[in-house]
């Protein structure tokens, strides 16, 4: 008989209180309990990076956390970055440099890049590849993703933006 707990957490700036099974993975909670299906699931053993979200400002694997562990914490998912009609410069850059093919790895990739670009707004090619090394992509061969990040850092420098998840 599985236990449940009541948790309260902030997701993309909104507060949620829910009762969850203690064994429910954070990835499943985000996707199916909160309906935020932008975060995807690829392996459930922490290796592919598809499920990456931002917890208290740092990138983490949501498949390796229990939802109950997010109690009292701040979570940001890809839905916080931009909307279809109002893309974040990082998302625009991915579009312009063709850094998206099937799009399945993309949200996790973006959530790894947001904190990275905050700390390193003008990365070199090598630094970018290091930063996305924990995110598998099978479609793009990473090349256009690297170009997307370079383009994003230019765009954001021009706009004087910080890469901060906006909502």
């Amino acid at each position, binding site marked *: *008989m*599985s*236990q449940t*707990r009541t948790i309260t957490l902030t997701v993309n700036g909104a507060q949620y209180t829910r009762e969850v*099974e*203690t*064994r429910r*993975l954070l990835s*499943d909670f985000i996707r199916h309990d909160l309906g935020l299906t932008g975060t995807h699931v690829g392996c*459930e*053993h*922490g290796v592919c*990076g598809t499920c*990456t979200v931002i*917890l208290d400002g*740092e*990138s*983490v*694997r949501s*498949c*390796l*956390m*229990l939802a*109950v*562990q997010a109690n009292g914490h701040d979570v940001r998912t890809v839905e916080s970055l931009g909307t279809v009609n109002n893309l974040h410069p990082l998302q625009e850059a991915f579009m312009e440099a063709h850094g998206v093919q099937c799009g399945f790895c993309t949200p996790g990739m973006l959530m*790894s890049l947001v904190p*990275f670009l905050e700390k390193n707004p003008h990365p070199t090619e090598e630094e970018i590849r*290091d*930063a996305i*090394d*924990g995110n598998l992509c099978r479609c793009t061969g990473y090349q256009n993703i690297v170009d997307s990040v370079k383009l994003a850092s230019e765009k954001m420098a021009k706009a004087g933006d910080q890469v901060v998840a906006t909502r």
Partner: protein
Amino acid sequence: MKPAAFDYYAPTSVDEALETVAQLGYDGKVLAGGQSLIPAMNFRMALPAALVDLNSVPELSYIRPTDEGGILIGTMTRDSAVEFSDLVKARAPMVSETMPHVAHPQIRNRGTFGGCLAHADPTAQLPAVVTALNARYHIRGSGGDRWISSEEFYTGPFATAIEPDEMLIEIEIPAMAQRTGSSYRQVARQVGAQALVGAASVLTLDDAGRVMEARIALTSVGEVPVMANQAISLLVGEVLTADTIIAAAEAAATVDIDPGGDIHCSAEYRRHLTRVLTRQSLTEALERAAR
């Protein structure tokens, strides 16, 4: 791949955590960073009856200097905090140098220093690195506190000396003496992958340039971190030359280890890498000690 059900405890103090752990005994498993335990649970290879989640116990996260010039790292300190700590860089640079090899940044943001050591994966880097640094492990249980060495701590693959009613509290990395140099070298198929072989060397020289103390710990060549004792014996008391280092590396590869082979790495290739990496890490440790 969903975990099986378990009873869940989230203590908020060290004492409460210890009480819970003691009560549960063999049924309870400590949940630290979860970066190794939760995948095992998702595969249903680990089926703990109860989890004691330490993530709400803030007193277990710290990096403190000791008066002797060493460091104390609380068991729940995130790997990323250790990675970017200036104190660690100053007093245990080999740990800082090793961190980028440990999985990926997203894993290091949640994974904990103590959790990694307590997991005792034979292919992990940190157990060998802290073994080479002569770390000591502070364990507390219903019987009180004890401090043990790395040799006592790691008892087998994924097994440590922590009893069912005990918890790892903190790790001490002693001060590095003057004229000490250290170096960790490894080969892994990809960045962040498990090491095929890793060699952590620490050399302390006296004023005449002779080796006063040498510690070489190897990972992925046995069930626990392996101290290359034969190799060490060839170094102590010597002024090192390229040839002595080569001889020591040879001893490490042929005498000190009895590695198995697996799908990633044959036993022979492991010996070869041990030879190469021991030589490389000793050479670099020596350069750094002499500075």
